[in-house]
């Protein structure tokens, strides 16, 4: 009897303990999910793809904005002067001088965003491949967006980041350094994949123009000409990054009316002095330094917080074709293309005797004013002479990447 009683007590105690353990377990797992974040494993349905596509596009906009401001700062398009009201960020100053520490915070922010853009685009494709879509048009859009922006991310690595001062290229997913030429190839591969999922001729033209640029920057002139020939044409709207007040145009925010950390080079004012009509391309305005006397020039191409930034346009496509014509000694064809662009801006027509590659470079600079293309042009046309020898010609692969990527020595 006594043993039975003892056994019953032990059993009750054990049951009580088990009950408590079970209750505690249930208690801690019965929590409300957060309202502002979601487990990525739940984003596997067709209906969630628009949310992820918008994320890719949003990251493209922020990445592209940062990239071209920093690239223009490193080029001779923009400069930093602490006498300009609003110019306070030392990391910008370092970029302007091409003396960029590997832990430069502004470069770090851009590099992180670029990594995210690449991941989000690739992740979108990975998720989409595991879904059986009911909506064929949505499926096409998803694969188009994933490939397009995955390609653009690789293009940005190839064009703007570098392992050292003069070696362009990037890193994908913690892998080894990928030289620019190979990175362009990877970009083109993605962009060509996107061609499979276009919805109309415009999409096709945009992709061809971007591929043409990649080929051109890779030095593949024949391929560049082929794609540019199927690229955007006069009248086509530009393919551009979009902004609003919640996601500001970085040019406006850091090198414009939002805050003037950078001003444009004085030669842009000279362009206007030479020809007032250039104001249709070179949009700048005068501001004064702290001394209220020194005149600086600030861009007003992106005058508002929500001003879109062109990524590629028919004008650039024409100028690429003009360059390729010129390099192939088809001077008149090249001149015609340049004049077509100038006509759009209501500028006078250039004559044959005043047209050569230098003029074309100037035309590119004015037409593609503050689109981040001056830096690759300075490198391509051997014009990178505004900084001391040894200055960075790329935005460096950052210290955080070097510290945390075992595949980088």
């Amino acid at each position: 009897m006594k043993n039975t009683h003892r056994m019953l007590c032990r059993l009750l105690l054990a049951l009580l303990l088990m009950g408590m353990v079970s209750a505690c377990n249930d208690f801690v797992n019965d929590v409300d999910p957060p309202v502002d974040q979601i487990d990525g494993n739940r984003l596997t349905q067709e209906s969630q793809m628009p949310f992820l596509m918008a994320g890719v596009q949003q990251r493209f906009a922020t990445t592209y904005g940062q990239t071209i401001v920093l690239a223009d700062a490193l080029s001779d398009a923009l400069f930093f002067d602490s006498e300009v009201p609003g110019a306070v960020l030392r990391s910008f100053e370092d970029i302007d001088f091409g003396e960029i520490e590997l832990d430069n915070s502004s470069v770090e922010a851009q590099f992180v965003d670029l990594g995210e853009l690449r991941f989000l685009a690739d992740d979108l494709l990975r998720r989409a491949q595991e879904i059986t879509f009911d909506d064929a048009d949505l499926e096409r859009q998803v694969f188009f967006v994933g490939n397009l922006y995955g390609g653009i991310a690789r293009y940005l690595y190839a064009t703007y980041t570098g392992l050292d001062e003069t070696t362009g290229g990037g890193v994908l997913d913690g892998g080894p350094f990928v030289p620019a030429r190979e990175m362009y190839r990877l970009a083109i591969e993605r962009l060509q994949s996107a061609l499979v999922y276009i919805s109309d001729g415009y999409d096709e033209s945009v992709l061809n123009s971007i591929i043409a640029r990649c080929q051109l920057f890779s030095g593949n002139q024949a391929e560049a000409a082929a794609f540019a020939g199927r690229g955007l044409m006069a009248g086509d709207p530009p393919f551009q990054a979009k902004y609003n007040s919640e996601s500001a145009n970085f040019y406006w925010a850091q090198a414009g009316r939002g805050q003037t950390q950078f001003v444009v080079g004085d030669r842009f004012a000279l362009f206007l002095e030479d020809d007032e009509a250039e104001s249709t391309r070179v949009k700048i305005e005068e501001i004064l330094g702290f001394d209220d006397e020194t005149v600086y020039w600030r861009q007003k191409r992106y005058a508002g917080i929500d001003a879109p930034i062109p990524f590629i346009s028919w004008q650039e496509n024409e100028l690429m074709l003009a360059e390729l014509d010129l390099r192939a000694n088809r001077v008149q064809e090249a001149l015609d293309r340049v004049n077509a662009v100038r006509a759009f801006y209501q500028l006078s027509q250039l004559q044959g005797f005043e047209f050569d590659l230098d003029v074309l470079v100037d035309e590119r600079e004015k037409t593609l004013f503050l689109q981040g293309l001056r830096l690759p042009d300075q490198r391509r046309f051997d014009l990178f002479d505004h900084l001391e020898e040894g200055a960075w010609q790329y935005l460096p692969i950052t210290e955080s990447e070097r510290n945390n990527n075992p595949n980088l020595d």
Partner: protein
Amino acid sequence: MDFGRSANHAARARHLRTTTLILLTCLANTAFSQTASVGGIVMDRRTGQPLAGANIVVVGTRLGAAADEFGRYLITGVPTGARTVRASYLGYRTKTTRTQIKAIGALSGKIVDNVTGKPISGIQVSIKGTEFTTTTDDTGGYDFRDLESGSYVIQIKKNGYQPLESMVSVKANEVKFFLKEDIIRGEEIVVTGIASRTAKSVAEVAASRVHAPAFTEKLSYSTTSQLLNGKLAGVQVRQSSGNVGGGFRFDMRSGGGLNGNEQPIIYVDGVRIDNAEIFGFEVGGQGVNLLAELNPEEIENIEVLKGPAGAVSYGTDGSNGVVLVTTRRGAYSADGAKARFNYKITNGWNTQASDYSPGELLSAADANSVLRTGSVLQNTLNASGGSESVRYFAALDSRIEEGILKPNRLDRKNLRANIDFLPNDRLVVSASTSFTLSKMQRPSNDNNVFGYLINTTISPTSYEFVGGGRSAIENIDDDNESNRFVGSLRAEYQPTDFFSTRVSLGLDDHDFEQEQLYPVTETYNEATFDAGLRNHFSRKSRAVTAGFDGRLSISPNRDLNVSLVGGVQLFDRQLETFSTQRYDFLTPLITTLKAGSQQSTIDQTSLHERQAGVFSEANVAIANRYFLSLKLRRDFASRIGRDAASIYYPGASLAWRLDSFRWFPGLLRLFKLRAAYGETGILPSSLDAIDLVFRPESGAYGAGGIAARAGNSKLKPERVRELELGLDAELGGRLAAELTYYKQKANDSIFEIPRAPSTGLPSAPINVGEIEGSGLETLVHASILRTKAIDVSMSFINSWQRNEVRDIGSVQPIFDSFSLNVIKEGLAKHEFYTEPFLGALFNDDGTYYGPDYGDAPLAHGNPLPSYTGSWTLNFQLFGSLRLYALVDWATGHKIWNGSRSQSYLAGNNPAYNLLATQLGIAGTFEADGVAWDVEPVAGVDPFTPGTREYVEAGEAFARMDPFVDSNFIEDADFIKLRELSLGYSLKGILPQTWKRSGLRDITLTLSGQNLFTSTKYSGPEVEVNWSGARDLERGQDYFTLQIPRTYSVTLNVAF
């Protein structure tokens, strides 16, 4: 009559309670009364000073009293008979006296069953050696009359009950207590576990306690951090900046594990409270610390379990220790519910402790001009009292304090009401409630381009970063408002002498709102700000703490006491935040959010988390000599990965009182060896257990999904183990010493491992690596001189700690965002790790080229001190004049002076500018860009390159190169006169008429804090950001406000 050591007595008393019959013998003042009064005086045995506030209780009843300012006490309604009366007073040995509460010629009483409490009738009661014999009536009562004064033995017999004899004496009911100082505070009851309390003299772990009133009566503390500064061995509490109401951080021992925020969990009256530092829309790095809302005037005790050895029963989150705050409570007073009031008013001034020197900064005058003298005004009124069944404490407090940087201001109102209900001897129900309304304005500072110090100490031309100049900064409004309710309800029930149970429920309900406005009329050179900008941030936090435990006490024989404890603890927390930003206002007259024409930010977050723990303890005391505890806790938490294993935390501890042996030298009144081992952990962050988390990011494409956080479903808590060895000793009643050595080891540390940005994934937490730490804590307290006229005592605390990261797996060294502090194998955590300065380089033509620094980073010291300590002096003259001083120090640590490097770069340092001029590079693009902004010093000719003076200038200039971080890592050893107060009590000279009207005491105190600092550190404040204001960053001084010097005058009136 002294019954000897209280622990012996307690053991004997417990033994007696297990008998089945209880005797209540009563002597009355009159022949027919069953109750009487007992009164007397409580004094210091050596000095004869009355011990006002001493607690006197009649053991076994709910009766008690607090001694008045003359040490007198009176307890009425005491059942007549043999009674144990006990007097206790903080810092003195408890004295227990067995006495007869008598009435001349009469002896009466009542017999009840010990278990049922029912009266026992028909029991024979006789007085031994006399013919007096009687039988109890229906109420259990008996009554003898016509007795002579003297001692008697009462005999009680009844079948079924053990016979009992008890000695009683018939004499006067006056009991005087002359207490000896308890130099080691061995009789203080300290916390040793979640459901365990024991006397410090038998505690198996290092018990650290700050008795707050002992300090708040001398100084007016703004925050709990100030209250704890220098008071505890192995615990440092440091302000992150000089902002009033700003952040502070704990540094516990050698820092526990590798991960987490290294902060302890904090309970106030059993409620786990939110101790976050809220940043909202930042003003440059300094947040609002929620612990700043805790009013030091309401605190009775702060106890700290410093590591896993002591905190094992608190489970996960306890690896950085547990801080237990108990607030003040009411005490029984002889005059029933009559309240005792205390009013305290403090008027003070916060002033600049350290001037900026023109020899260091060209802009020193501007920097000094922005610092002001801020006023401090605090009013506190509290009331306490109690009867047999109800005790209460209530306090109303207002503190308005201005910081030294406009517009920094704190306006804090605290209301507290604590009530204890004691309906019978077996049940106590306690309720604690507090409400805090806090308003704070933060100044713009630190890493903030609109900050005062950045604008006045970087460049020789002040305010060049902000268009509108000083007024643009002054007119930034940053208003933070906090409403907080912390309440708890606890019931303790002891149905039998061997079993007790406790249930508790607590709530910490906190609402925080921040309104930040950049005025429309000011210019900031940023469009977002130039037409006005309003930020709104709100945060709601609700945390519920609930617990239940039971204790079973068994005494198989008089030398063995065993208690078994089991219980469950639950914690539920919900947190919501909302933030929005609008700008571009068309009129300065309307600046509501709606009036802003542009929306730039809107965000909302929520968090719901739960924790639970099932714990058990077994405590064994053998012959009042050996004390052993075993503990085990099983933890559950919503933050733990679903694929992680079950979490158990074991612990064991042992204490050995050598002084209990006869052979032990009597001079050592207490000599205890102790050893404790325990394990706890740190939980992952919320959502860490989810592999990949997406959040929406709004833009022109809509709100798209962005990868916000990478997690790890196998994540388990970091596990921290600690072994603690120590001894406590008291020598001759004059000297007390506590020595504790500990060794900590953490593994499975949770760490945010930064991923290569090219992965596109955020940093992810993993269980990685190992860290070891150890330390030695010493506390010596000496009573130097104790006479009727003079009382002098001193305390000395010294702590040493070290830690070393042993393994971080395959992970690369982990840097903070400024790449200065590192987590790296072979180094202490947070070590400064950067390229070393090697010298100056010169071109072939002898001109200066730049600094030479190493290719690879090296360790340059640690931001956390190896040694910390304090020295405290208490001096008292005639019990009226009191002098108190606290000096503390820290050595063996470094600070990176980022402010200095920036001022060099901008040409704001005369010595740097002179060298640049002498080198001929001031204002040029030479020398790696370090002298671009330097104006050449007028009248100074450049040296000739290649000459000795040129080379020396080059070497000195290179050593100041602002791009070489190691040039700015400085020794930060210091010694501070932290606190000083001089008080005078008018109690002895108060007119009798005032005393009769109820006035008990008036005390006037003059005090100062942060009065003097000696350090080699070149910045204005050696302590700022010692512990960092942000994760991973430690010891980085980047335009952080200095801690002010505070003077105050306090008037305290007791009535």
